[in-house]
């Protein structure tokens, strides 16, 4: 209670001088060099690196690369790690209690209402004053492209946190895969258009009598709208949750003509048994098909993650499917030569970010510390570990040693990376994982999936004001329920597709235009930054 009152009082005092803090002087700051002469301890909130008991990692300080960073900087971090699965609740409580650690990692995912709000709520400090001094390497990293620079700023012109910047840019890591062995046995070529897919799935159904020739998730799609992308619409549950950005105009997919065409197609396919008859009740299939579908020869094609394609036969396929040959395949299009507009798309600026809280007593040192991840030597220390131990230089590039690639304790390369390395803010060197990827994975991410990708309709990282967001959530809660429910009914045939116009009118009656308006306003603000 006391703190609460103090907070209210502090706010009342602050109200008069909104924005004074932003312009902290950029000059005459003393240089900070690492390692620091005197050791210092910072506290940091961050979600767990892993909850896998066999890795024996309970806090980041158990990770060798974190220890190496500590040695190189003389900065000790005391981690506050929320229990896995309760991150959002834990974060909300931390914010509500007013008891913040010095550094807040993962702040962008968990701060409800966006980072401008985190700044105006006095939870984190804007970093604008540090961009030319203690954060100059980060500044250089994001200044490489205007788009990235814009993306790292907020609507209000703040630099709220040090983002994870994809270095290099990341290709699509999620897309469609198909059983090549089945295609071969049926004597069919890889399908290109939705019509081709229809032929192939029908053949699969007839020859193998499988439950789900095409395995889609319980919303009739996948989380990146890969399969619906040829119709240029986003399904619910995909990023944007139905909202798309068609050359600067926001649209709500579920009332678009393309959505109707897509749903009509799925309706016909469902009636023919080309989808899992129980697909809509299998809610554990969000990202990836459940094992009872793909591992038992019940699915012929499904959306998958690139790194899993090569591993599928070893991931528990039953005896009849041990020799399955799963290959990546471009997403279907309406007509041969067409492009898809929705797919797994990665902005250069990741959603992860680390911020400095208002409770931090040494913001200068904290900023300089967060800047380190934008320097190659520190980033390599985090992402590749120590030279000679976990990596060696080949032609000037770090290559993992057998400690990672063929771990003597039998850890998979992924587990070994988690056990020995960590991800620092700044350069996000995701491509280290390509060293562990199989040949099909590489062709998927580099060639096959990007092959027919057109302009992306995915909305950029926009934020609404809190008033907009409140109203938006009230409206969209009901609309989403209605759309989800009726999408299933149209596909199953419990509601006839002739009632489509009725359905669209109902959604309009639920004021979808107002919600679209909020998205549009946020997008316009973003484009205007």
């Amino acid at each position, binding site marked *: 209670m006391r703190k609460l009152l103090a907070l209210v009082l502090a706010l009342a005092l602050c109200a008069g001088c909104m924005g004074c803090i932003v312009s902290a002087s950029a000059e005459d700051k003393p240089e900070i060099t690492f390692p620091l002469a005197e050791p210092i301890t910072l506290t940091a909130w961050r979600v767990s690196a892993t909850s896998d008991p066999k890795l024996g990692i309970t806090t980041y300080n158990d990770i060798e690369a974190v220890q190496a960073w500590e040695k190189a900087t003389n900065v000790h971090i005391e981690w506050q790690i929320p229990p896995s699965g309760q991150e959002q609740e834990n974060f909300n409580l931390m914010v509500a209690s007013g008891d913040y650690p010095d550094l807040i990692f993962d702040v962008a995912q968990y701060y409800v209402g966006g980072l401008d709000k985190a700044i105006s709520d006095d939870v984190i400090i804007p970093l604008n004053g540090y961009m030319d001094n203690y954060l100059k390497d980060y500044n250089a990293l994001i200044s490489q492209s205007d788009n990235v620079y814009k993306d790292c700023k907020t609507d209000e012109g703040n630099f709220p946190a040090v983002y994870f910047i994809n270095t290099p840019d990341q290709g699509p890591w999620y897309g469609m895969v198909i059983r090549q062995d089945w295609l071969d046995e049926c004597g069919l070529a890889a399908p290109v258009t939705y019509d081709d897919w229809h032929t192939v799935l029908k053949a699969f159904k007839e020859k193998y009598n499988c439950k789900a020739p095409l395995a889609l998730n319980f919303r009739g799609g996948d989380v990146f709208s890969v399969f619906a992308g040829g119709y240029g619409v986003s399904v619910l549950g995909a990023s944007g949750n139905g909202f798309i950005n068609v050359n600067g105009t926001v649209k709500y997919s579920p009332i678009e003509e393309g959505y109707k065409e897509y749903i009509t197609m799925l309706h016909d396919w469902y009636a023919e048994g080309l989808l899992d008859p129980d697909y*809509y009740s299998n809610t554990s299939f969000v990202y990836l098909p459940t094992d009872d579908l793909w591992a038992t020869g019940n699915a012929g094609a499904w959306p998958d993650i690139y790194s899993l394609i090569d591993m599928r036969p070893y991931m528990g396929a039953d005896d009849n499917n041990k020799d399955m040959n799963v290959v990546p395949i471009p997403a279907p299009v309406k007509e041969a030569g067409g492009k898809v507009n929705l797919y797994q798309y990665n902005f250069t600026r990741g959603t992860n970010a680390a911020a400095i809280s208002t409770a931090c007593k040494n913001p200068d040192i904290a900023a300089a510390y967060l800047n380190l991840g934008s320097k190659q030597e520190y980033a390599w220390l985090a992402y590749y570990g120590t030279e000679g131990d976990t990596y060696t230089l080949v032609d000037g590039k770090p290559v993992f040693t057998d400690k990672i690639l063929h771990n003597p304790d039998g850890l998979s390369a992924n587990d070994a990376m988690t056990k020995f390395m960590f991800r620092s803010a700044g350069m996000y060197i995701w491509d280290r994982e390509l060293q562990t990827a199989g040949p099909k994975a590489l062709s998927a991410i580099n060639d096959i999936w990007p092959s027919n990708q057109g302009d992306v309709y995915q909305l950029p990282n926009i934020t609404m004001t809190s008033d907009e967001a409140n109203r938006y*959530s009230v409206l969209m809660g009901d609309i*989403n329920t209605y759309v989800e429910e009726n999408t299933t009914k149209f596909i199953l045939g419990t509601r006839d597709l002739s009632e489509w116009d009725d359905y669209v009118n109902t959604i309009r009656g639920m004021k979808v235009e107002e919600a679209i308006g909020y998205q549009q306003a946020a997008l316009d603000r973003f484009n205007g930054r």
Partner: protein
Amino acid sequence: MKFINDIKKNPGLYLILLPVLIWFIIFAYTPMFGLVMAFENYTPKGGFFGSKFVGFKHFADFFSSVFFGRLMRNTIMISVLNLIFSFPAAIIFALMLNEVKNKAFKKTIQTVSYLPYFISLVIVCGLVATFTASDGAITDLIVGLGGKRQNYLGQPQYFRTIYILSDMWQGIGFSSIIYLAALSGIDQELYEAASLDGAGHIQKLIHVTLPGISTTIITLLILRMGTLFAVGYEKIILLYSTNTYETADVISSYVYRKGLQEFNYSYSAAVGLFNSVINTVLLVASNKLSKKFTETSLF
């Protein structure tokens, strides 16, 4: 003052009650200032007393939802049906056990009956979904009896049946424990006296056994009325699908879905408060009725 006199009359009792009251004041009443959240757009920065006051806006939003009627209907249906079937089931089960003379058999069944309570809801719902899928074991059984092959859990008309049956299956043993305890407290002399009067087993059941546990039954029933509107979301969202929303979606699952999109404390608080008000009305009403027709009442 009468109150002071009462304290003077029962100093020992008040001394015993005092720590309990203090606990309630600190941990139950002090946090209630948080209820103001339901009437404002709560933000952590503004806190409970500095956030923007919006009056009944969140209530209006909830009442004007196109799904409001359906949510009310589903919540009431599931909860009333559950009360009608599950509540007596535990009593009947306890009475059936009470008739068993073989001690080993009785103990075994009793112990076994309470085990399903400890299997996590996720697993139980997973099993239910697998067994009632279009190729599931229960569906096979229904098809064998001449039924249609379909995903039963996915059909709106079967959702409530499946929900309530699985609830009974999991909870009946655990709920019956309290009745077993009450049954063991009945004075054996009463049975002997009844036997001497020539009462048969059925008369004994009606005149001795049931009155012996009636206080427990009525107390539990009143308490149950106070939670009538609180159908938990966990099991609902584990079992429902988009095709069964029309019969399965209840207030709590609706709020849960809303919460996923935007952590809207105020809205959840408003719906929670609405729930509490209705439950209070039900509790007070059932307490009044019980006071009128039986000797038992909570207050």
